[in-house]
């Protein structure tokens, strides 16, 4: 089968990751995933605001996902909407199991994901970038969290759908994993898949995640290469 930009069924779009790009944030990351361009920034751990969310025995994680008005074809009304709130929520769920939250009781970690240009798969790219930003902020984690989508286009299961494929395809399923523990921390699906197709798509997405994982490690090593300490 021919895919839109001549990719194989199990081929990712080109990914470029850079860690530590923002000066004001405690940790940050910029990712270019195909035509997606996304910034992730991490603040904290810091005092909890609003106060009533404070947990005595662990840190809390707050995620904000925002799309720039110019990130999509037709101008998007600025500000949070139903979709942004949902993605913030699932990102929080995807990243929290990987963070050692009990290290910093009574504190808060804030993640802000800013989509500058969107081309399908922004939540996956956002999670990938946010986990690097967390590592860049020096927050202790069990592992990095790579994320990648799989879906069904023209009756075939393919990896990492681009915008045109997503719009015409039958299903899209973002997956985030903790590679070391082989655990899935995000699994959403829109569209329909049979049971066998679902199994196949999850497997495919997980192999994609592992590829992304390698790129994440590369990005961090590139940023901190040559560091010495006394």
């Amino acid at each position, binding site marked *: 089968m021919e895919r839109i930009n001549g990719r194989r069924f199990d081929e990712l779009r080109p990914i470029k990751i850079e860690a530590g790009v923002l000066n004001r944030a*405690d*940790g940050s990351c910029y990712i270019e995933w195909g035509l997606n361009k996304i910034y992730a920034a991490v603040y*904290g*751990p*810091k*005092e909890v605001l609003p106060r009533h969310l404070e947990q*005595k*025995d662990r840190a809390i994680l707050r995620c904000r996902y925002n799309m720039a008005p110019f990130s999509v074809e037709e101008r998007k009304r600025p500000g949070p909407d139903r979709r942004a709130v949902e993605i913030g929520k699932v990102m929080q769920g995807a990243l929290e199991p990987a963070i*050692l939250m009990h290290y*910093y*009781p*009574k*504190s*808060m970690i804030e993640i802000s994901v800013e989509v500058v240009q969107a081309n399908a798969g922004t939540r996956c790219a956002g999670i990938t970038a946010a986990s690097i930003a967390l*590592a*860049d*902020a*020096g*927050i*202790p*984690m*069990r*592992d*990095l969290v790579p994320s990648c989508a799989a879906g069904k286009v023209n009756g075939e299961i393919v990896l990492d759908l681009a915008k045109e494929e997503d719009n015409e395809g039958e299903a899209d399923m973002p997956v985030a994993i903790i*590679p*070391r523990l082989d655990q899935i921390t995000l699994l959403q699906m829109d569209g329909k898949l049979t049971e066998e197709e679902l199994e196949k798509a999850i497997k495919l997405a997980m192999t994609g995640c592992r590829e992304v994982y390698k790129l994440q*490690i590369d990005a*961090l*090593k590139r940023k*901190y*290469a*040559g*560091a*010495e*300490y*006394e």
Partner: protein
Amino acid sequence: MLYAKNRELAVPGMLLAEGDYIDEDGTHKEHGKVYASVVGIVYIDRRKVRVVALKGKYIPKQGDSVIGIISDERFNGWKVDINSPYEADLNQKDIYLSRYQSLKVGDLVYARIVRITEIFETSLYAKRPYGRLDNGILIEIQSARVPRLIGRKGSMIKMINEKTGSIITVGQNGLVWIRGGDKELAAQACQMVDREAHIPGLTDRVSEFLSR
């Protein structure tokens, strides 16, 4: 069984050792395996494995000397902002103030962390040689860079002191207080250490900068 070399760069989730190893700072142990939990440099000392983080907020530890800013007054002491997610308490009896001195919101103290609970309720002690800080300037560097600023056996700080004539007090929490001498120059040198800590040959460059 060791999987990492000494002084190697580690990223979160990297397998460092398996079996009878002790997980110290910057690592965690799961099912008998020690993994890195932060980005940093691996140090292995016999059976102890630790990763020294290259970045991160200051987290108070017992025995640390820190510089704090008074943030609130209480009936028997003060709340102190120690540049970390957690505020510290300073009791009135734990600091010596002469009859003409007082401690108000915004004042600086140099203090030692004497006690810390599981939920980071932190108590300070500020009697001699600690105490209130006067007549100086305060700068902030990353707390992970503090050991670089101090240098091996205090070599870096001694050099800055000799060349600028300033007295420099470094808090483990990344706040640096500079008094006397050429304060501006000393501050610039400290900031230089913060900025270029990861590039080799730091001591020579700082020395050259100060001699200019």
